[in-house]
């Protein structure tokens, strides 16, 4: 049936190869290992190319997502611009009314948006660096706000950057007003500020929980936090994690 001599010879050769591998499994195992080694080496360029293609594809996909996000943000921005225009109209009406009674326009507190560029995690100390400085009108002692509460004050300033000491830092101290009475508070490196003493007070003041702690400013009153009690001692509670994403510096207050 085998009408090809070469095929028969090859069959005989492989028969003996099989016998060798069967009787001496070490050779068989080595052959398998070499085969897998060759497979791995041959695969390398294809895997490299597929990796590159995958990378390109994922990059392309993420680009699409970014474009979608940008489109959504544009819409949101447009909406916020409209709200801003509406608020500007209301403010101008208020200013006009104010002028009628006071013969000049009210001074509106000016804030500038800043972003954190260093020490964001507040690891070494409780200070961080922002991306604006003297050139933007920032000065030492300016308050830094997160939209609602005071986050800290400018400690030092250069032309383009400034260092902010946060309200929870040991280095922070300020005069606050609670229920029309002045107090001095200081940071503790924890998420609360402790009272140092009551300013200009003879009689003892009783503080209540959740009383608003205010920092009196020339133009606007700023909120520092609320009164709470730890081991029956009054403290000012600050947020556990300060929101450093949307900061503004009050430059004329």
């Amino acid at each position, binding site marked *: 049936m*085998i009408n090809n001599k070469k095929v028969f010879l090859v069959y005989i050769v492989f*028969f003996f190869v099989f016998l060798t591998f069967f009787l001496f499994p070490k050779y068989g195992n080595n052959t398998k290992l070499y085969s897998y080694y060759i*497979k791995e080496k041959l695969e390398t360029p294809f895997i490299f190319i597929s990796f590159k293609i995958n990378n390109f594809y994922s990059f392309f996909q993420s680009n699409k997502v970014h474009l979608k996000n940008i489109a959504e943000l544009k819409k949101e921005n447009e909406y916020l611009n409209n709200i801003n225009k509406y608020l500007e109209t209301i403010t101008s009406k208020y200013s006009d009314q104010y002028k009628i009674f006071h013969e000049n326009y009210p001074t509106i507190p000016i804030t500038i948006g800043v972003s954190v560029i260093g020490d964001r995690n507040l690891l070494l100390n409780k200070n961080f660096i922002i991306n604006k400085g003297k050139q933007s009108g920032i000065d030492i002692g300016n308050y830094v706000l997160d939209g609602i509460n005071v986050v800290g004050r400018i400690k030092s300033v250069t032309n383009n950057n400034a260092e902010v000491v946060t309200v929870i830092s040991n280095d922070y101290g300020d005069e606050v007003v609670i229920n029309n009475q002045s107090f001095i508070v200081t940071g503790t490196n924890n998420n609360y500020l402790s009272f140092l003493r009551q300013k200009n007070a003879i009689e003892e003041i009783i503080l209540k929980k959740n009383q608003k702690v205010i920092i009196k400013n020339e133009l606007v009153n700023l909120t520092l936090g609320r009164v709470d009690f730890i081991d029956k001692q009054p403290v000012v509670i600050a947020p556990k994690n300060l929101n450093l994403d949307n900061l503004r510096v009050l430059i004329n207050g």
Partner: protein
Amino acid sequence: MVRIFLVIFCFLSYGNFNYLVDNLLIFSLINIGFYSFLKEKKLDLFDFIIFILSTYLVELFLGLPLFISVVTFSLPLLALSYIINNFSVHYSINSIFIFILSLLIFYFLYPEVVMTLKIKDYLLYFLVLIFLSIGLRLDGKEQS
């Protein structure tokens, strides 16, 4: 040449995709082996080497003793080739025969895989049957 390319493709692809593709590659290698052996009554050296190569890869990937298929299957397959090639049947019958024979071998190697195959997986396996038919048809045209 196409078969050599396919064998190399199976060799490089095995283990880089999912479980289903790996099974399909093994099945394709079995098919290539049987096809090479059974496509003509007179077995030439090139077909025999492709048979050895494809069975070697199956043994390598499944951890079987190397070259056991060449030694044990060659003589029965020669007899089978003699039988099926003496009947002048349509190439599609031949391809279905090879497909079923490969499926049987695959069943003996992986009984649980064949039993748990889903219908869409079967459809993938039938792709191999289609390529078998095309191969036999083109081969027949070449010879005539």
